[in-house]
């Protein structure tokens, strides 16, 4: 067994449902490499192809084009019951005619493991998900959160190489979801299994993942660690989907090699690293997070200038909506330290300063 091989690899995978006018391209030439022991998240809006990618990995569907590799080996010929991959289904899909313990032991039993081993593993799993007392209950007689943990235990029990989790927390209330997020992380840590986690909740993705793939309309737009995705979104969709972002148009006025200068709408020029295709005179879009903008006096040195249109108090921080001279509105978030927010009032003219590294130039 080669330890170097990636846990899962999708190579130029496309999946088309239907034919003719009713054709749906659920995945469009997707390539992704998921490492061993990684907590990898697929993040994207409804219908972007997250479930489809999981189903291809699990073997419930076959790719129209491209190939799926598990630990370096092509698995096209393997039906789902021969793949060392287990799924936690969005609706749990627990077997209603079996007890909690029978559900958890099902996979091991199908693998032909001896009875004593099945029982030992089931007990260990019950401890792991803290469900020992409910061992003999029917799955229809336990709560949603408990069902979710049984589904998790059932998928973990056969010790798969990869665990696929399709929005497993979406049915839970806020408090339980927070608890389960921590528990999932703990279990991934304790078992060392590669987790591929699907969600459309960006906060969940940011807090739990080692790496995130942001998807839209059958494409993967960016793959990176949570802070990479958040701090350096590759394009407008990613920047917009993850957290709040201001988009500001700027013009390239100078460039020498990678270094260049761009002019902000206010006329102020700043130095910035440029991509190779941004020539002098071309327009670029900057993504700037609201918390990376500072409010300063308008008569000092500023990048942008505007008038405070609106102030919203959020407890830990305050959001200012500042209308620029160009008409655009910029959102600025300031942490509430004592005495800060009293200074400014609606209608005041303020200056905005932005650290150059907080101005992320988006790819077109």
């Amino acid at each position, binding site marked *: 067994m080669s330890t170097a091989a990636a846990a899962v690899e999708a190579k130029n995978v496309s999946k088309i449902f239907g034919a003719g006018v009713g054709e749906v391209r659920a995945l469009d030439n997707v390539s992704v490499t998921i490492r061993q022991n990684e907590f990898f998240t697929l993040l994207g809006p409804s219908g972007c192809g997250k479930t489809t990618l999981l189903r291809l990995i*699990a073997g419930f569907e076959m790719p129209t084009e491209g190939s799926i590799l598990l630990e370096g080996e092509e698995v096209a010929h393997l039906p789902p019951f021969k793949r060392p991959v*287990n799924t936690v289904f969005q609706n749990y899909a627990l077997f209603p005619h079996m007890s909690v313990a029978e559900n958890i032991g*099902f996979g091991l039993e*199908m693998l032909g493991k001896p009875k004593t081993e099945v029982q030992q593993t089931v007990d260990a799993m019950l401890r792991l998900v803290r469900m020992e007392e409910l061992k003999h209950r029917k799955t229809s007689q336990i709560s949603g959160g408990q069902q979710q943990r049984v589904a998790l235990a059932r*998928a973990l029990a056969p010790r798969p190489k990869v665990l696929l989790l399709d929005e497993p927390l979406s049915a839970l209330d806020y408090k339980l979801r927070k608890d389960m997020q921590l528990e999932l992380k703990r279990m991934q840590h304790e078992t060392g299994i590669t987790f591929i986690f699907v969600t459309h909740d960006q906060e969940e993705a940011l807090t739990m993942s080692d790496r995130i793939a942001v998807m839209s309309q059958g494409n993967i737009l960016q793959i990176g660690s949570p802070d990479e995705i958040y701090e350096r979104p590759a394009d407008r969709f990613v920047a917009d989907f993850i957290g709040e972002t201001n988009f500001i148009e700027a013009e390239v006025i100078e460039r020498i090699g990678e270094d260049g200068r761009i002019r902000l709408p206010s006329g102020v020029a700043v130095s910035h690293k440029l991509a190779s295709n941004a020539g002098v005179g071309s327009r670029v879009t900057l993504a700037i997070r609201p918390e990376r903008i500072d409010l300063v006096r308008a008569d000092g040195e500023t990048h942008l200038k505007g008038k405070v249109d609106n102030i919203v108090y959020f407890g830990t921080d305050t959001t200012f909506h500042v209308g620029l001279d160009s008409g655009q509105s910029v959102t600025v978030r300031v942490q509430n330290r004592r005495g800060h927010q009293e200074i400014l009032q609606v209608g005041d003219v303020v200056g905005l300063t932005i650290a150059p590294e907080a101005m992320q130039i988006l790819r077109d």
Partner: protein
Amino acid sequence: MAKATFSVRRQTGFATIALVCFVMLYAPILTLMIYSFNDGTSVAIWEGFSWRWYERAAANEQVQESALLSLKIASIAAVLATIFATMAALATTRTRPYRGLTAIFAAINTPLMVPEIVTAVALLIFFASIKVATGYTGIAYLVAAHTAFCIPFAYLPIRARLESMDATLEIAAADLYATPWRAFRRVTFPLLWPGIVAGLMLAFVISLDDVVITEFVKSAGQDTLPTYMLGQLRRIVTPEMNAISTVFLGISVMVVALFFFMTRKKN
């Protein structure tokens, strides 16, 4: 107290109509049952209580033979029909939609709508030619005919059960290393079982009850209980018929009750 929702029970005349319906349904049956205990030979004039017609029916060899044949045919036909219906239900719900699926679905269910007499005549002619060709005159014709018309009845509850069943359960079984056959054995079949039992019971009762098709298809001397009764009624009516009918009714009710308790315990 005023209720916001429409309640048919509060409409004027509802109670009366309901009562009339129940009386129409059960009064004749009740009368039939009562006169089965009549001491006299009339089915209309009460002459005191006795078990004599039950004793007589039980001792009647023709009744014994036809009842046995009825049970034999109903058992075999119900089991065969249920097996076919189960396969048909799986083939029409557990596959991706394919061309002709609607046509197949219709083909399975139209026998419910074809007038029984038409089926009976068709079978008579069809089997007659086979009889001529082979010389075989056994009960296989009746079993085949009963199996055929029982399939749609067995199919309905099985299909209903399959459709209400979450298909991801089978996918989950496959995900947990169950081969298709083991997924069927361990997940689909146990969950489908109440539907299969319902189909079996329904097919059994329908077969037991059949007159028209049996009358047309049977060879000489192959009377089932209903066709025997029909033959007797043409001649003379005694409370013996009432007694047989009452026992018959008892068996049907028992089958249905058995089914009811079996499925209720499951859930």
